[in-house]
């Protein structure tokens, strides 16, 4: 597939890579000179500054005519010296002049010269060696060098109008970063599938996929979720930008893009990425040293919660946060009499097979298994990490669990174990999530009225049934298939609650209870 992207600062040719920022610098010096040549006291230095910039231009021009492909020590010496002259005269003028207009131009000349000096081609060997040396001194070179390697990501510009790409590129070309532009969101997403980036500038108004869709896809993908996204749009689209911020964009810029604001947003974005990378690195280290925790608890907790526990020392504090979750409670109907009729080791075999398969389904649906008490399973969707589709996933998960029962029962028959039936209760509401318990024995979990209500709803279920509270049903964004509904006033609940028997979920989930008799189903939205 032909990619329509242009690359601003390709590593291919160091001379042409240096020439465009150098030309910008020459223009700045020339502008200052021609606007201020009547300043007699400054004239000498203005001429010297201009001359130094022309020297720089000549050196690069000659190198390009000589077809020089790498920058040798001599050329580096000359270029650095000329940039040093420009810096020196600009600083001298800075000391001599109080006029804000001149000082402003001088500041941009200084910044431009400094940026070119930071170009890797101009960093002298001893400096780069010093850099290498400092990273070698690190006690854990492997993980660190890899991460440092990954950290040098690119700045990505996504805008369907190539002129906007070019404009942004020009603003960004002195930042030491590789700048890559894409004129189509699809191409950019393709590229980001395999490459890291530090910051993405994303145009809001584009033909399919538009900025909002690109943003959503970036935020849904594990690989790209952490890359800071800065939305770029006209001020008339402020509403659209607000929608993007809600959907996970980190920042915004209005067109026409102001250079100072752009720099500020960029450095904030880069800073954010640096912290995220650091956090990632920290987690990797912790994961390695605590891999046994993962081995022991990984069966019961989703990766989310393990990662959360491992990466945040404060995650081990007691206490918690209030948040909306969907709660799933499942247990085997008539389990107690079953236990009494079976030898203990057969009971354990039965539970382990059942709980094992159910855990897998819950974790696959990004649920967190909060508690397994004998045959009862309590799972939460929305803590410690909340997602937009927590409720829908909880419902889909319950259906998947019910449908897994026929397979489990076949296995039970093979092992001469009795056939079992499961009832599942669902409820949605605010709970307290956190590490609950005493200092000595604390575990991540949820407490609150809605947890108790879930248990009551689950009590109403018969074998093979899923019952959900009105709160879950109304929170679900996609249509559900409902077999029956009734109103009940569970113990400890003041108001009656509507309870629905769920047999299927539509939308992109498309999950239905296998044995569902078609004539019972009816649409609900």
């Amino acid at each position, binding site marked *: 597939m032909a990619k329509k992207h242009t690359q601003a600062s390709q590593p291919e040719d160091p001379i042409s890579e240096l020439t465009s920022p150098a030309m910008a610098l020459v223009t700045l010096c020339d502008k200052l000179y021609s606007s201020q040549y009547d300043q007699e006291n400054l004239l000498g230095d203005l001429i010297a500054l201009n001359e130094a910039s022309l020297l720089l231009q000549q050196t690069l021009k000659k190198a390009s005519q000589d077809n020089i492909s790498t920058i040798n*020590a001599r050329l580096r*010496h000359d270029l650095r010296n000329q940039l040093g002259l420009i*810096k020196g005269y600009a600083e001298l003028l800075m000391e001599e002049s109080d006029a804000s207009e001149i000082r402003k131009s001088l500041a941009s000349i200084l910044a431009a010269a400094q940026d070119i000096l930071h170009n890797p081609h101009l960093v002298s*060997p001893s*400096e780069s*060696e010093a850099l290498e040396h400092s990273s070698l001194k690190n006690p854990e070179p492997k993980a660190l060098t890899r991460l440092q390697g990954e950290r040098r990501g690119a700045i990505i510009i996504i805008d369907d109008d190539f002129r906007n790409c070019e404009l942004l590129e020009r603003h960004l070309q002195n930042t030491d970063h590789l700048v890559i532009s894409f004129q189509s969101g699809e191409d950019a997403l393709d590229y980001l599938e395999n490459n890291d980036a530090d910051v993405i500038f994303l145009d809001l108004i584009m033909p399919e996929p538009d900025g909002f869709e690109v943003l959503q896809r970036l935020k849904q993908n594990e690989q790209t979720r952490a890359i800071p996204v800065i939305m770029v749009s006209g001020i008339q689209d402020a509403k659209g930008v607000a929608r993007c911020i809600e959907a996970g964009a980190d920042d915004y810029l209005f067109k026409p893009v102001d250079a100072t604001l752009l720099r500020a947003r960029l450095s904030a974005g880069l800073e954010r990425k640096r912290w995220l990378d650091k956090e990632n690195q920290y987690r990797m280290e912790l994961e390695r040293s605590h891999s046994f925790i993962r081995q022991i608890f990984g069966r019961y907790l989703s990766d989310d919660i393990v990662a959360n526990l491992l990466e945040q020392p404060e995650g081990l504090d007691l206490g918690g946060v209030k948040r909306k979750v969907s709660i799933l409670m499942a247990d085997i109907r008539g389990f107690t009499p079953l236990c009494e009729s079976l030898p203990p080791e057969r009971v354990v075999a039965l539970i382990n097979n059942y709980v094992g398969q159910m855990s897998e389904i819950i974790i696959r649906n990004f649920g967190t298994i909060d508690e397994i008490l004998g045959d009862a399973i309590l799972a939460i969707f929305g803590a410690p990490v909340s997602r937009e589709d927590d409720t829908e996933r909880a419902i889909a998960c319950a259906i998947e669990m019910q449908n897994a029962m026929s397979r489990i029962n076949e296995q039970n028959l093979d092992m001469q174990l009795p056939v079992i039936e499961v009832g599942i209760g669902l409820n949605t509401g605010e709970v307290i999530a956190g590490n609950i318990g005493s200092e000595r024995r604390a575990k991540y979990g949820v407490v609150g009225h809605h947890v108790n209500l879930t248990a009551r709803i689950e009590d109403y279920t018969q074998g093979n049934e899923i019952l959900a509270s009105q709160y879950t049903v109304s929170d679900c964004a996609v249509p559900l298939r409902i077999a029956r509904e009734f109103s009940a006033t569970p113990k400890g609940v003041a108001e009656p609650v509507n309870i629905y028997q769920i047999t299927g979920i539509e939308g992109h989930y498309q999950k239905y209870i296998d044995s569902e008799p078609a004539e019972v189903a009816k649409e609900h939205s």
Partner: protein
Amino acid sequence: MSRILLVEDNEMNRDMLSRRLERRDYKVIIAVDGEQAVALAGSEQPDIILMDMDLPVKDGWTASAEIKQNRQTAGIPIIALTAHAMAGDEARARAAGCDEYEIKPIEFSRLLGKIEQLTQ
């Protein structure tokens, strides 16, 4: 005020640096090659020497070594200035007897700090 011997063959560098130093009330003496540097160090007895390393006639390393080997000039601090810093340049400058080392383009405020420190 301190007297500085500035050894620099590049005219623009010389002009720029000497003027910036003079603005700070230093008295600047100019040498344009290594040989002149050795001679002026002896005759002028400056408080400090700023020595470019890449010099005609006699390079900065040789000139520095000679200044440091001469009992009359050995006490004058030398700051080596060089643009194409190669690995080992600093060690080489120090071996020649230089007291400090600055990579060009010069960070002027840092250079001033070093001059002040060495001329106290």
